[in-house]
């Protein structure tokens, strides 16, 4: 556990803020940290940018995320879990190839570290106010396609409905609510996805986060959807 100072904040969308701090430079895209605000709560956050200065990006939900947005300091454990496979060892050379990234709302945070030139990003949110990182991803040269539930920006409907008939890429990465990931899987897309689950210990012993015998905090949060939704 270590204490970090907030170096900078950036508003990314409505109720959504990035918090920059020093550390986690060795982390992999897809990994998360446990953020502790003493006296309030401890909860998981994906790393949205990784470097000498890293960031997390929070969507305001309850007391924890709200306190995070006004904190000058907080404590962290981690990084935990496995990152996306393209960033691991021998797969690293694939990093330059085109990727397809599919995110629901704040789920984009865990995918952001790997967004690069020529990638296609499908980003869904409830309305145009809740679309984080769009300018930054376009500035990196990614093709960002937007879907909103109310049609206030881009396609009207869910991000899954907005996907083209055939997605041809070996490298499809996703992050979002479980229902979104399930519907992605049911569309025949066995993406590598970062899962959300209730984290307590974050070190693979308490069984709080486990889905179908898959220990999300330690063996995930990134996993092929087939491991979760496939009939085994």
């Amino acid at each position, binding site marked *: 556990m270590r204490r970090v100072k907030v170096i900078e904040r950036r508003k990314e969308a409505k109720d959504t803020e990035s918090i920059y701090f020093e550390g986690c430079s060795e982390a992999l895209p897809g990994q998360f940290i446990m953020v502790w605000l003493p006296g309030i709560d401890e909860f998981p956050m994906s790393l949205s940018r990784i470097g000498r200065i890293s960031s997390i990006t929070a969507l305001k939900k309850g007391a924890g995320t709200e306190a995070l947005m006004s904190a000058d300091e907080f404590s962290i454990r981690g990084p935990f879990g496995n990152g996306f496979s393209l960033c691991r060892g021998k797969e690293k050379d694939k990093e330059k190839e085109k990727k397809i990234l599919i995110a629901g709302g704040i789920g984009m945070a865990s995918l952001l570290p790997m967004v690069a030139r020529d990638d296609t990003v499908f980003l869904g949110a409830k309305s145009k106010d809740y679309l984080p990182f769009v300018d930054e991803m376009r500035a990196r040269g990614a093709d960002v396609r937007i879907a909103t539930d109310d049609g206030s920006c881009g396609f009207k409907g869910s991000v899954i409905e907005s996907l083209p008939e055939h997605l041809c890429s070996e490298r499809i990465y996703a992050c979002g609510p479980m229902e979104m990931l399930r519907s992605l899987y049911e569309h025949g897309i066995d993406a590598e996805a970062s899962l959300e689950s209730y984290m307590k210990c974050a070190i693979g012993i*308490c069984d709080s986060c486990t889905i179908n015998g898959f220990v999300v905090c330690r063996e995930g949060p990134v996993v092929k959807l087939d491991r979760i939704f496939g009939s085994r």
Partner: protein
Amino acid sequence: MLGVELCGIKLDSPLISASGILDEHAESMIRLLDAGASAVTTKSIGNLERKGNENPVIAEVACGLLNGMGLPNPGIERFAGEMEIVKRKRANSVIIGSVFASSAEDFAILAKRMESYGASAVELNLSCPHAKGFGAEVGSDPQAVFDITKEVKKKVNIPVFVKLTPNVRSIVDLAKACEEANADGITAINTVRGMKIDVESFHPVLSCRIGGLSGPAIKPIGIRCVYEIVEEVDLPVIGVGGIVDGKDVIEYMAAGASAVGIGSGVYYRGLEIFGLVRREMEEFFREKKIGIEDIKGIAHRR
């Protein structure tokens, strides 16, 4: 080569998974069995569903873990489903049903349910250090330990293990109470009361403030407790506390343990720990040219 017998239950190794570790969901218990645990102890299950304590519930400390989970569990009713799945998918698996309650009557009701779910034995958690009104709060008094054990023994036919707390003046007094109440065995130890304060914010780290220490830091305490119990009491003991490798198991068995529980070790070495420890023990026995039956309680004779 590593087979042991515990109250008539045949185990293919002495390596049991300890209560509270990846054992709330059926599929997780199956992972433990497939990883080589010879038996799985379930999470301690109570009458009603409990969410457990608020985060943080875990803190890493030198040579150990501090936890204050607060007995989260789905309640005995819903746990039936998890037991059913494990028994169906791994027919011959040995499951030790751990239960907690605040009265002897409730302990007996829960134990009976575990028996009806197909548990091979029950373990009475009289030792959780961080749940108000339960665990060590009822299990520190030899008379209460006697009453609870006696009541449970009246109601169930499967072996009854009593899990004891080291946070008392004399764990032997508790063990004697178990023996007098006709317990079938003892599990020792549960976590050692401990605390961590964050000196940046001066907040206690665990939301419940005081929690339980586990891992290598407590192994000498576990060894001492098992040794003391075996000196005085004629019951099989499951030794728990700080086991991470094969030699740790050997040490517990030399102190007199009949089998062992592995908990925090799953953090230190992953689920593979069961396979790894098994191999380390086999190696040890091969090198020393002795067998597992030669070492039980051997330190008492030196």
